[in-house]
């Protein structure tokens, strides 16, 4: 019934497998959120889990993010291992008080007496014509906050593997799942069993330029890198995976090899994760740079509903290729 390593599955299926495994292995684990039970999750991630595990462990909640995220925090403090699902990061703003003022702080304010091992999953990003109130990428808001761990699986292996270490972490962990990746198919490998929450990963090695990215933009970078390779430019892709903490060593290690960098971020440019990554590169690797740092971010507009406008607002391979060519100057 459960597909193992080597099989092709969707990102959605990988997340579901991870949740199912956690529920099966640890009686303290339960899933709660809007429509996760009878409806099977608004992105169908938890479809079938209610039948399998029952109402005690797959709990439909009222439409009150603040209330059920707060309940999850309390349950975690009381010894449970809740997985709280929030439909999209946009809706998480109703619970941001619970996440920032409680989940992130209680362990610190209690002198370590009350860890908050809650896992909060939320969908993020655009690309499915869900319009401005369901499509934003607000990862940077949470990556700003000490006391939280923030991860964003972009591959099948990470979607499958990150939940376990997230539940094991004594800190609250926010897992961002890109909406546009749920239907992506890929091969599940044995590496999924060994993933961690801290390290960035070289998704594709290359010598000429580093593309630093995360989430759905990873695959835009892969397409761009293939196009660049056709003209002899080998791009190295760094998948951040962990947005807090950032893996400075991996980022700087790659930049020192290639000496050129373009950061691809589905967040808005202003005050973005891309800005933070760029600044760290400047702070720690200024003398390794052979060209100004480039960025490809989402246009500074609320994500439009019409397909052509939504596409125009988001980072795409063509813009990434153009940004890379700008950093190469005439040396391409």
């Amino acid at each position, binding site marked *: 019934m459960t597909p193992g390593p080597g099989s092709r599955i969707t990102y959605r299926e990988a997340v579901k497998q991870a949740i199912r495994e956690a529920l099966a292995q640890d009686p303290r684990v339960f899933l709660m959120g809007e429509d996760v039970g009878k409806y099977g999750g608004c992105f169908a991630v938890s479809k079938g889990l209610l039948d399998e595990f029952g109402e005690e462990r797959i709990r439909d909640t009222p439409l009150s993010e603040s209330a059920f995220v707060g309940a999850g925090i309390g349950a975690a403090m009381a010894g449970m291992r809740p997985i709280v699902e929030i439909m999209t990061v946009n809706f998480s703003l109703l619970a941001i008080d619970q996440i920032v003022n409680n989940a992130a702080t209680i362990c610190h304010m209690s002198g370590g007496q009350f860890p908050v091992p809650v896992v909060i999953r939320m969908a993020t990003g655009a690309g499915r014509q869900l319009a401005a109130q369901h499509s934003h990428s607000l990862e940077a808001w949470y990556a700003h906050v000490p006391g939280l761990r923030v991860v964003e699986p972009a591959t099948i292996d990470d979607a499958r593997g990150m939940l376990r270490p997230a539940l094991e972490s004594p800190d609250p962990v926010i897992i961002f799942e890109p909406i546009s990746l749920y239907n992506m198919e890929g091969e599940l490998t044995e590496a999924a069993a060994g993933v961690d929450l801290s390290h960035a990963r070289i998704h594709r090695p290359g010598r000429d330029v580093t593309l630093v990215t995360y989430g759905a933009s990873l695959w835009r970078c892969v397409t761009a890198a293939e196009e660049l390779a056709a003209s002899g430019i080998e791009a190295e892709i760094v998948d951040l995976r962990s947005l807090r903490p950032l893996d400075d060593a991996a980022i700087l290690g790659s930049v020192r090899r290639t*000496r050129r960098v373009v950061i691809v971020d589905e967040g808005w440019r202003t005050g973005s994760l891309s800005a933070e990554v760029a600044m760290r590169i400047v702070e720690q690797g200024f003398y390794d*740079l052979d*060209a100004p740092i480039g960025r490809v971010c989402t246009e500074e507009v609320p994500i439009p509903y019409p397909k052509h406008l939504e596409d125009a607002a988001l980072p795409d391979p063509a813009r990434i290729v153009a940004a890379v060519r700008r950093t190469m*100057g005439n*040396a391409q």
Partner: protein
Amino acid sequence: MLSEFRLPALGADMEEGTVVQWNVAPGDAVRRGQVVAVVETDKGAIDVEIFEDGVMRELVVQPGTKVPVGTVLARLETAGESASPSPAPGPAGAAETAAGSRARISPAARVRARELGVEVASLTGTGPGGAITIEDVEKAKRPAQPSREPPAAKAGEHDMAQAGGMRAAIATAMSRSKREIPHYYLSLTKDVTGAVDWLAARNASVPVTERLLFTALLIKAVALTCRDVQGFSGFYRDGRYEPGPSVHVGVAVALRGGGLVAPAIMDTADKPLPALMEEFRQLVMRARGGRLRASELAAPSIIVTSLGDADVDAVFPIIQPPQVAIVGSGAVSSRPWVVDGKVEPRQLIVLSLGADHRVTDGRLGAQFLAGIAERLAAPGKL
């Protein structure tokens, strides 16, 4: 940024030095001009000043180590980015070119250029916006700069270094001078009775410590004349003359153990006589105590050498490269002199000029020498 502090050439004849002590430790904040180390050279122990503000990070050369000029002595953290790859200390010119427009060059390429000793100003960039990239630097790589003194300078001579570092230094500088500089010499006998009387009257009314020496008048007269007549206060480098940024008259000081140095009185022409005299006194004292500052040794744009106390009539001085002129004077002595058709005892001095014929000709030299004599005739205006 991390900046390198290299052993400066404390004069054109210096090739190496021994770090005697550090006056600073890693972590200390330093200011441009601060004495950070004492370096033993052929000219004695020299207080070496640093060229940039910053914080010391690393003392690379340990006390007791002898290193060639240009060796990185220490590294310091500085606020800005320095435009010139290695802050070449020294007489004039070098620092000025650092201002002006900056090359458009990537940080990594700048570091690489420094490592390879590539002059970035001459490169054409192929990077974004025409910026110079690492690749551009590496393409332009050429052998490191030749040392400032060809080895031939030392070959063929018996081992002067062992006879004494100071001798060897003078040998190197003077050999180079006579090898490279086509000197011409002029001399002028001048009646300076007026100046001598003026000095005597002035000195009679002030305490001993404030008395002026005739040499102070001469130094000031030379400095002012350098402003009137161009071509004598400056440097000959890379086949052309560069006027000094300011007139810094060096004063040849004989040392007790033999040998001599010529530290500068900075901005000589702007200093009133009492201040100039006091500085001259200090300079002689420090020179003989072996505690001169690097900038004082490197700065002179022209030198005055006086053998007045040695009772010679005239000096035929040799230019110290890369300078282009040197003024000599013999003793002021009472001699017969024709005044208004009658022979009278007067105070006479023989002024002489050694000048670089690549830069000036005898007629201009004569004008220069006459200018000095004229200034000496009006000591009240000095």
